[in-house]
């Protein structure tokens, strides 16, 4: 049976092409990992793998390199941005797919998707010229003055109220990842079978009860996939973050103060790295970023499998 199905010449060519292309993707991914690893090997050899990962100092002059401040910066900014973006993007998805009239939903969906099409340097510029003064004058300075008067212990945690730093970077990052989380959630919600909803309505459920008891549980796989896509985007975002985060290499990071991410340090230092240990360390940071993305994706895949509806994991 199989022979007859795939025996035609056209089919064979098609299969061969697919296998080649699929294999090429895997090959390229493996090659990238290998290149980053071999490029960064010198740094890993010098400081030890864990020594490099947990090293807190990054000093080109003394030749001390450690990725910990950037690892922490990447994880914090991405996680907080995701936490901030999750509910709004879910709300937008529900509003578009369930509540809004069809024409309005289309308009909103189009606008949300447009957010994803904006180049990140535009977000960065908008951040510097619009968001930073706003955050500085309306959020950071009042909070800072308040803490100076009432809770001096908090001041170290808050950091300098300049508007440039972790807070602004996280806000812009959250805005940037909304469309990724939202559009997958929207599609997942639209795919919920009509019968499921009708059954629920027949039981006398309100619209909100239908959303909560039927639509969201049914669509959670898609919603979660969107979340992971958004997280991956946040981990690797470079330009907008570099423009807004203040690029400070020192731990501990404060809420308003400057920080740095793995992507931002690579973008900053690569052009002027003269080779040797600095270049190796930058490539090693790239390798760690690769590793981090891989771990996040695997974890996501595992959770997604457990979440899928109809496989009886309850």
């Amino acid at each position: 049976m199989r022979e007859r199905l795939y025996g035609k010449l056209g089919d064979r060519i098609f299969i061969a092409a697919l296998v080649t292309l699929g294999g090429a993707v895997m090959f390229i991914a493996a090659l990238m990992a290998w290149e980053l690893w071999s490029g960064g090997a010198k740094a890993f050899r010098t400081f030890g793998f864990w020594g490099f990962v947990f090293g807190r100092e990054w000093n080109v002059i003394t030749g001390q390199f450690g990725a910990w401040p950037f690892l922490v910066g990447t994880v914090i900014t991405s996680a907080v941005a995701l936490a901030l973006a999750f509910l709004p993007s879910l709300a937008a998805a529900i509003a578009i797919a369930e509540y809004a009239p069809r024409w309005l939903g289309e308009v909103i969906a189009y606008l949300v998707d447009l957010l994803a099409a904006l180049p990140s340097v535009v977000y960065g510029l908008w951040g510097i010229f619009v968001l930073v003064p706003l955050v500085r004058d309306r959020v950071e300075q009042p909070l800072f003055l308040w803490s100076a008067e009432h809770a001096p212990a908090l001041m170290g945690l808050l950091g300098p109220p300049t508007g440039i730093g972790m807070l602004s970077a996280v806000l812009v990052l959250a805005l940037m990842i909304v469309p990724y989380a939202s559009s997958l959630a929207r599609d997942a919600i639209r795919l919920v079978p009509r019968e499921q909803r009708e059954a629920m309505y027949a039981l006398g459920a309100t619209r909100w009860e239908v959303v909560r008891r039927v639509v969201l549980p049914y669509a959670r796989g898609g919603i979660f996939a969107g979340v992971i896509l958004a997280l991956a985007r946040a981990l690797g975002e470079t330009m907008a973050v570099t423009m807004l985060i203040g690029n400070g290499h020192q731990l501990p990071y404060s809420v308003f103060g400057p920080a740095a991410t793995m992507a931002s340090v690579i973008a900053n230092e690569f052009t002027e790295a003269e080779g040797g240990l600095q270049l190796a360390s930058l490539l090693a940071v790239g390798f760690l970023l690769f590793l981090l993305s891989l771990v996040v994706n695997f974890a996501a895949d595992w959770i997604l499998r457990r979440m899928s509806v109809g496989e009886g994991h309850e």
Partner: protein
Amino acid sequence: MKKPVLVVLALTLGMALAQSVSLNGAGATFPYPLYAKYFDAYQKLTGVRVNYQSIGSGGGIRQLFAQTVHFGASDAPLSDEKIAEFEQKFGTQVIHVPTALGAVVPSYNLPGVTQPLNFSGPVLADIFLGKIKKWNDPALAELNPGVKLPALPITVVHRSDGSGTTYIWTEYLAKVSPEWKAKVGVGKSVSWPTGLGGKGNEGVAGLVRQVPGAIGYNELIYALQNKIAYGAVQNRAGKFVLADLASVRAAAELKDFPADTRVSITDTPAPEGYPIASFTWILVYRDLDKDKAVKSRAEAEALARLLDWVIHDGQRYNEALHYAALPEVAVKVSEANLAGLRYHNEPLNQK
């Protein structure tokens, strides 16, 4: 009938081939506008095409070592270790050819203060070390009598990317402050004790503009072109000098100019000189045949002629683009260096 046409065709083809020497260079972004002008003018003059990629000084040095370019360009001279590595690896010397002068100025954003502020080296070092925290600090007030300085906290802004500008800035601070030298040091990217980082000149300028009370540092050219307020710096002779083309050029008028041109002119002894200035260099192999990118004697000769043109006739393009031109003494030393260029041990005739 047909023959003359063929001859003409062959002639034009031959001429086209003879003229199609093209040279490749890569490196510093700081002199890029100037180099673009040089190479455009040079192509119109001689037909020799020069491709220059402004990938950063570090990248230029990497390409020079990788032998993919005819020349590299850098805002900082090669370190002694790099030179030793170069000589050991390629069995020849690297020639530094200075092309122009640049300066770095302290730029700031101080609402309500209109006249240019005065700074001194030690005060700038203390600000960037995070020791002077407020604009009305006594040390700053002493340098600026009659100026009403606000009690605003100082926000330090530095380059987040590796940069020749940072190299010049930190090199100056290390010269005037032993504490800076011990704690931070000199480099294209350093471990900053305090402050925010902006990417590129525009990043630093953008942050300074956005944060009241901020102080940063920018290339003079960038500050001039974008009309950014910057302060005067006290030089070694005790004079407060506002950077401009004349004071930058004055800074390079040294009595004893080293033969390899790797000279630091920060904290210059020249009485009228601006203290935070530097040369920018083009780097070439002394034995051009050792550079795999140089494929023929014709290319080597073209390169030698180009460099000779840059340090002489090319200099007239400098000032229009806000780069200070080379002082006489630097031209003299470079002439001697360029006369030493060789191809398979034979000198290249430049004229």
